[in-house]
Structure formats: C-alpha cells, structure tokens
C-alpha cells in the first residue's frame, strides 16, 4: 500500500470512529468509497442538465450514509455469526459440519465486502428472491437452516452453480444461512414453537 493510501485509510478510520456503533472496519468502507468515486470519475456520459451532473458525478449525504450502512460493523458481523452458530447447535448439526459452516459464514461475510465481487452479489440477489417466495411457516420453523438448505438445494440456478464451482457447496449453504437472518423474518409460528417444545 502506498503512503498516500495509508494516509487515506487513516482519515477514513478516524471518520468511522464516530459513525454507526464505532466498530465499522475502515478497509472495506474505504474500498467501497474508492470504487464508487472511481466509477463516477470515469463515467463517460454527457451531462445535459444540472440534474444529470448530480446523478452521474455527484455523491450526496444520503448516498454516503447508504455506503456506511451497507458496510456491516464488526459487532453486527460477530452477532450474526453467533446467531447462525447457535441455530446450528439447536438443529443438532454435527460439530465438524457446524464448524465448517461457521467458517464459511465468516468467509462469505468478509468476501461480500468487496464491492467488485459481482459473482457474490448476483448469487445473493437470487437467494433473497427465493427466500421471499418461501412460505412464512418454513421460515419460522425451528429447523430453519436445515429446511431452507434442503429446499434451496433443489433449485438449479446458474448463479449458484458458479458459487459451488468457485467456492464450495458449504460456502453456498453459508450464504443461505446468512440471508435467512438478514431477510425480514415473519413472526414466529406458534404451532412450530409448540412442535419444538
């Protein structure tokens, strides 16, 4: 890393200390911001109006805040890993598989911070779509991860095939698990809770 980049990263780190819960990692936010600025700087379009110029080349408070919000804080990141890990225990995953899954969850959360990783972005969109189509009863099941993995594994999307071949089956399952918790979950199904009890 050049002296200039180190200096920029330091400025970003100081800035992020007062944003969100104060635990947002500077490197991913710096990378996101840099990629966005480069995209706007290199855009070769004609700005016919002031509104065009703002749209094509401008970054507003709202957009910068969106970038800050999209980079998950270290605390939220850790909370999500704990949630998945606890659920795997509840669902009686064998320890070795549970460990592998948690490791892939961490790997996925780290890799998706790269805004240039389109492979993950499109696969994630597909998961979000498929989860939105799933019945609330399944999403509130006590064995939600097992059931969702088993349901989604029957679908043969090319975006997911690419994830399997680039990373692994378990990496794709980890993506499913993360998205389950990031999806707006329906309220718990009382019947399922009774079954669980």
């Amino acid at each position, binding site marked *: 890393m050049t002296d200039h980049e180190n200096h920029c990263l330091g*400025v970003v780190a100081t800035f992020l200390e007062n944003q969100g819960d104060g635990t947002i990692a500077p490197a991913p936010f710096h990378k996101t911001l840099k990629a966005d600025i480069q995209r706007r*700087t290199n855009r070769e379009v004609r700005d016919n109006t002031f509104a065009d110029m703002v749209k094509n080349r*401008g970054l507003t408070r709202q957009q910068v*805040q969106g970038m800050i919000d999209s980079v998950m804080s270290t605390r939220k990141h850790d909370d999500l890993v704990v949630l998945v890990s606890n659920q795997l225990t509840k669902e009686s995953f064998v320890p070795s598989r549970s460990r592998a899954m948690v490791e892939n969850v961490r790997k996925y959360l780290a890799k998706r911070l790269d805004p240039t990783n389109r492979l993950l972005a499109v696969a994630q969109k597909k998961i979000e779509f498929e989860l939105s189509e799933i019945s609330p009863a399944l999403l509130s099941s006590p064995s939600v991860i097992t059931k969702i993995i088993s349901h989604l594994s029957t679908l043969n999307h090319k975006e997911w095939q690419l994830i399997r071949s680039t990373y692994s089956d378990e990496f794709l399952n980890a993506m499913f698990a993360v998205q389950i918790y990031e999806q707006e979950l329906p309220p718990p199904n009382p019947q399922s809770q009774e079954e669980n009890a």
Partner: protein
Amino acid sequence: MLKLHEGDGEYCVLFDVHDDIVSLDHPVAPTAARFFQVKTKTSGNWTAHSITTGNKSSTGEPLPSFLGKLYKHRLKFEIAVDRLTFVSNGRFNVDMADGSDSREKESIRVSDLSAAVITKIQIALTAEHSLPNFPTGLDRPTLKQRR
C-alpha cells in the same frame, strides 16, 4: 467529503467536473459551490510561474493554467463560489507577504502572498481570461499541500 458528512447540512460532491471536484451545499438547489483542483507532483515544488502558466496543446495552442482554470469557475459559475482550492501533494515555493517559508505551510491563501507575486498572478489571469481589469476576489483561491 467526509468532513462535510460529519457536519449537519446537505451536500453534494461532484467528481470530474471540468477535471475538478466541486462541492455544493445542496444536491437539488445549491446556493454555494467550492471548487478543488487536485494535481499530483512527482518532483520539485510548485511556483507562481508553474501554476499560472499553461502548457501548449499538440497544435501549439496555449492551454489554461491550473490557477486560471480554477479562476474561470469564479467568472462563469452562476451560483456563489465560496472557495477555490488548488490541492497537491507537492509543496509551494512562493514568496509570502510576511517573509515566512511557504514550503512549510499546508495552506496558503493567494492574498497572503507577497505583493510582487500577487501582481504576477493578476497579470497572468488578466491575460489568460482577457479581463478588462485586474481580477478581483484573490482572497478566495487557496493553495493546499496534502499527502
């Protein structure tokens, strides 16, 4: 931009507008603009001559100087130009009115330069923009040294 975000108001930072960065006080209805021209220098210092003298195009036509380009915004922009800043990693070697060493400064207002340098800049800007009189508002441009 991060400094603006730490404040309360709206803002919009535009990238690569006539090679410059522009910050507006509102994305929809701006009332003030700040222009920044960022130039990297690999060796040596900036001088009054180097910031007020443009290169020549491939056909021999004179190209605008860095300060001249920045000053042009003040002449043509319809909304109030709040600040004009030339930013570089290079240092500035220019005579200061108070005799201090400009190479040690991170921020220099053009109005704080020696009378001789200000006159030199005024002559250069007058010629570059074909102004009828010496340019006004030389308290606005600032030279900043940043890593």
